């Protein structure tokens, strides 16, 4: 993090569905190689923000640059180039139910490279190894647990060696141990492969463990209410709501 080179730039970004403004005019940068967490209470627009960054929704105003390119202004070919730089692991995995783990992970290689089937399979197996799932290659998504599905989703998301990996709610619906294992996986990948992680979550344990930097959204003001190191925010934030969040207090308790 010595040379802080922004890889994602969000500038004056507003998200709205019709008249319903979800996020109102926010700006922030994500730097290369960091583990960046978007957090906030339920319904604050965390996932909406992520879906805008990866290009699924169009911003109501403002712009989002990934590695210098605006995905919403790019033509189809440029969009593909930008999409190859990012990988997305969805909340419930979004694995294709009719394909085995190996086929799911190998799919982008088949679609985007000319590797021979044997070679592509080896590369897919390398990634499956990396997420610790060797032995489950020929299982169907319906035959593996929720934590394993998320691992497969990570393996598939990074099969083309993206620079940025988005991860929506890694801990949602998982037991604490599996959740910690996923956090370890994120740390391991981020340290060894120099991938920038953008993680959407509200699980405090994960946040303290993996985050370099967080931004916090609040649905009442629809803006970023805090930015920085989570340990720092816990003790030193002057916003009472932020302090409450990091210290796990309910609103009625004070």
């Amino acid at each position, binding site marked *: 993090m010595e040379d802080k080179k922004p890889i994602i730039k969000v500038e004056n970004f507003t998200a709205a569905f019709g008249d319903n403004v979800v996020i109102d005019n926010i700006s922030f940068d994500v730097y290369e190689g960091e583990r960046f967490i978007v957090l906030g209470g339920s319904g604050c627009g965390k996932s909406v923000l992520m879906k805008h960054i990866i290009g699924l929704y169009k911003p109501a105003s403002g712009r989002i640059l990934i590695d210098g390119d605006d995905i919403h202004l790019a033509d189809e070919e440029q969009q593909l180039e930008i999409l190859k730089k990012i990988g997305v692991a969805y909340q419930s995995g979004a694995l294709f139910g*009719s394909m085995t783990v190996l086929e799911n992970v190998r799919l982008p290689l088949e679609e985007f490279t000319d*590797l021979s089937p044997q070679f592509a399979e080896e590369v897919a197996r390398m990634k499956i190894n990396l997420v610790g799932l060797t*032995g489950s290659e020929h299982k169907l998504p*319906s035959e593996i647990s929720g934590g394993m599905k998320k691992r497969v989703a990570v393996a598939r998301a990074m099969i083309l*060696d993206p620079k940025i990996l988005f991860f929506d709610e890694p801990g949602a619906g998982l037991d604490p141990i599996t959740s910690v294992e996923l956090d370890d996986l994120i740390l391991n990948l981020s340290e*060894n492969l120099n991938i920038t992680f953008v993680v959407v979550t509200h699980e405090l344990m994960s946040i303290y463990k993996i985050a370099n930097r967080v931004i916090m959204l609040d649905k009442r003001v629809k803006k970023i209410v805090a930015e920085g190191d989570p340990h720092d925010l816990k003790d030193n934030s002057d916003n009472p709501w932020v302090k409450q969040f990091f210290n796990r207090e309910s609103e009625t308790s004070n």
Partner: protein
Amino acid sequence: MSALKTPDSELFIKSSSPELLELQVIGSLDPITVENIWNKTETQIKKVNPKVVNVDSSRITYADTPGINYFIRLRDLSSKMGFSYELINLTPEYQKLVDLFDKYVYEKKPEETINEDFVTGIGKATAESLDSSYESITFVGEVMLGFFRYFTNPSKIRFKDILVTSEKLGVNAIFIIALVNFLVGLVIAFQSAIPLSQYGGTIFVADLLVLSVFKELGPLMTAIVVNGRSSSAFAAEIGTMKVNEEIDALTTMGINKIRFLVMPKFIATLVMLPILTIFGILFAMLGGLVVMISLGFPPITYLNQITMAATYVDLLAGLFKTIFFALIIAGVGCLEGLRTKSGATAVGDSTTKAVVKGIILIVVVDGIFGVVYYYLGV
């Protein structure tokens, strides 16, 4: 680290002897180049069969995961052929990646090949079809119980669901039912008018239409169209609910899935199919009317001929069949929906099965009725 577009990589052989093979990789190891480089490396190693292989890696400009697989393959080949190898001056960045993946040894386990002999195959197929018959019989029993409970406890009937299903299945289908039957009537009338006119009996087109449409084609065409529209919809709806665990939710709430989901569809189909069939017959007759008018008959002549030819027995014999067609349409659709396994493809499979099985059963039952009616003299 962005993938290079041009395959600008090369493998150089610096020295080659049975003792020492010195290779150098220059350029990028990416999905485009790596296989070519590896094939050359492998050929060279197999040709020379050296004791030591040195790969000068100082000029590798880029390597991603497929690129790193080059080194993993080299490692595996070395243990297979028994040579030692060294990567010289590999950039620390890539060395780190090699180490990361090097930890993992993946022996390719032979896949569990299911060696099934012929007899096992027959046994399995028999067991499966027995299972599926068991399911079908249970389903029929549950539905009959459902009907029984409807009559003993009418307050539990979900009229709103029945109305909604009736609208989708019946009202919204009228146009297509009318169109199909109109064309059937038109075509039959037109085709039969030609030979009948040779005997001066063109007016008997009306009798022929009554005979074929009331008892046979009206109910059959209508049932096949409704089967295609609604049986598939039932299977998809219930199948998607099954995939989303909504059926499980019903079960744990103590709500009987047959009463809640299946019965409204049965009732709606049983009520709407005869009505649609009557519409269908009417429009088939209109199709005949168009032909007769174009042949120069006044409409009243056609109408009189029809009223003379048609009996209530014809109509009721046709409508009686639709009860069975309705049971097939609702039953097959719902049963296939409930049998859905997991995943989006499974819903598609169920829908296909529902339509195909529905059509087969409808045609078979129609055939049986043909024989029965013949012997009964209806």
